[in-house]
């Protein structure tokens, strides 16, 4: 992609700061870490979930359970696509009944991924509450869904592309906006 169309809006330091702030907000809101479980949405939400859990464990001095869900089977557009998206594994090795689930994703956009994730989680049990943490809120919601904890609000147009890169997956921590007009998350 041509370089002049992309802008870097977060780097390693600002991502780490945002995650630290979100961790404190989670503790403040829930008055501690009791009963909290963290669930990340594959792929990058899962990585952020690990990082948040690590922060929270340091602050609260107890290790929190971390799980991963793949929402492919809950999408509302499966039968529209010609090539089926690859189904990856869901790993929820703990009980979520009566727990406060902090659901983590990298970017919230239309809200459809979160809708799918909520359905998936509820199939595993009835949590006391589900709270949503995202690194980037780029607007353009198509469903009545809102994040509880936000790293950064980034006003975008629909034909811009927001890309979160994380060391574990992409070798670098950064958030960039691509204005070349390809659209999407």
């Amino acid at each position, binding site marked *: 992609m041509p370089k002049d169309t992309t802008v870097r809006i977060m780097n390693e330091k600002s991502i780490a700061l945002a995650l630290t702030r979100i961790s404190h907000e989670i503790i403040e809101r829930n008055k501690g870490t009791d009963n909290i479980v963290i669930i990340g949405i594959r792929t990058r939400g899962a990585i952020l979930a690990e990082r948040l859990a690590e922060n929270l464990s340091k602050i609260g001095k107890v290790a929190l359970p971390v799980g991963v869900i793949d929402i492919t089977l809950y999408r509302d557009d*499966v039968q529209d696509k010609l090539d089926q998206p690859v189904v990856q594994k869901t790993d929820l090795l703990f009980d979520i009944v009566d727990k406060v689930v902090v659901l983590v994703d990298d970017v919230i956009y239309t809200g459809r991924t979160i809708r799918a994730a909520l*359905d998936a989680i509820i199939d595993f049990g009835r949590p006391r509450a589900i709270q949503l943490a995202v690194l980037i809120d780029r607007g353009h919601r198509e469903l009545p869904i809102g994040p509880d904890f936000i790293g950064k609000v980034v006003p975008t147009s629909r034909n811009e592309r927001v890309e979160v890169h994380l060391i574990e997956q992409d070798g670098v921590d950064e958030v960039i906006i691509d204005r070349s007009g390809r659209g999407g998350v």
Partner: protein
Amino acid sequence: MRSRHLLGLEGMPAEDINLILDTAISFKEVLSRRIPKVPTLRGMTIVNLFYEPSTRTRISFELAEKRLSADTVNFSASGSSVSKGETLKDTLQNIEAMKIDMVVIRHSAAGSPHYLTTCCQSIVINAGDGAHEHPTQGLLDIFTMREKYGKIDGLKVVIVGDIKHSRVARSNIWGLLTLGAKVSVCGPPTLLPVEMEKFGIKVFDDLDEALDGVDIVNVLRLQRERQQSGLLPSLREYSRYWGITKERLGKLNENFTIMHPGPMNRGVEISSEVAEGTYSVILPQVTNGVAIRMAVLYLLSGGSRKDPTTGGKVDE
């Protein structure tokens, strides 16, 4: 998936086989959940068209469909308009007129699923056609092997029994060869097809020779109806020469596995002791069958939703 239908494993590229096997791992996890069901195929209608008796395959397909939230309709040839002389094509076109998306078909005539693809719009899945192929059985057998050994490449597999009339054998052979296994077959000479060696398959009529140094024995059901056709002297003789008993297992590799697609004739092709041994994966095969069929249904459902503006289907 390269193909719109699942007709057989012959010619299916390794990437597609592996995609199905990998996807089935995720569905196996779904089946272990408190609510073993996902909404993926909501709104899809699937017809199970069974022209031959079946317990396992039919229940397995039906469960897989229900676990994916599809609507299902079951059809068996007995007690239907087939007994009034309706042709396969007419039956299907009539069912299709009631707006269905997929057909799972079991038929005694080899090639009937292929034929259906030429005269209907639906996605067709072969659930066993004559002595030709039974692709989901082949896939679930390969999945079960991969689950235990971590890979297929280099595994030594012998298929024992009535190879000639077995669609299970054929689907296993095609899939296993594509993924790099070393396949051999063993059975009475009257029940072994000719020229198997051309495909790189070793052929034995002596069971002890066939079992030497092998990892997996896939034991086929002896179709008793064959005995009448003069291909077998007697069940007792078959059992003595080709039945898998505990005494025969010594020649196999360490960590060997016994498989059987069911239904078993205990004491004929396999002894009860072997069927229930710790090395037997006959029941895990059945469990994996549901996950494999869910993977196949999911992967083939892409682009199946009808376009509301034209009422037609999305083309390939």
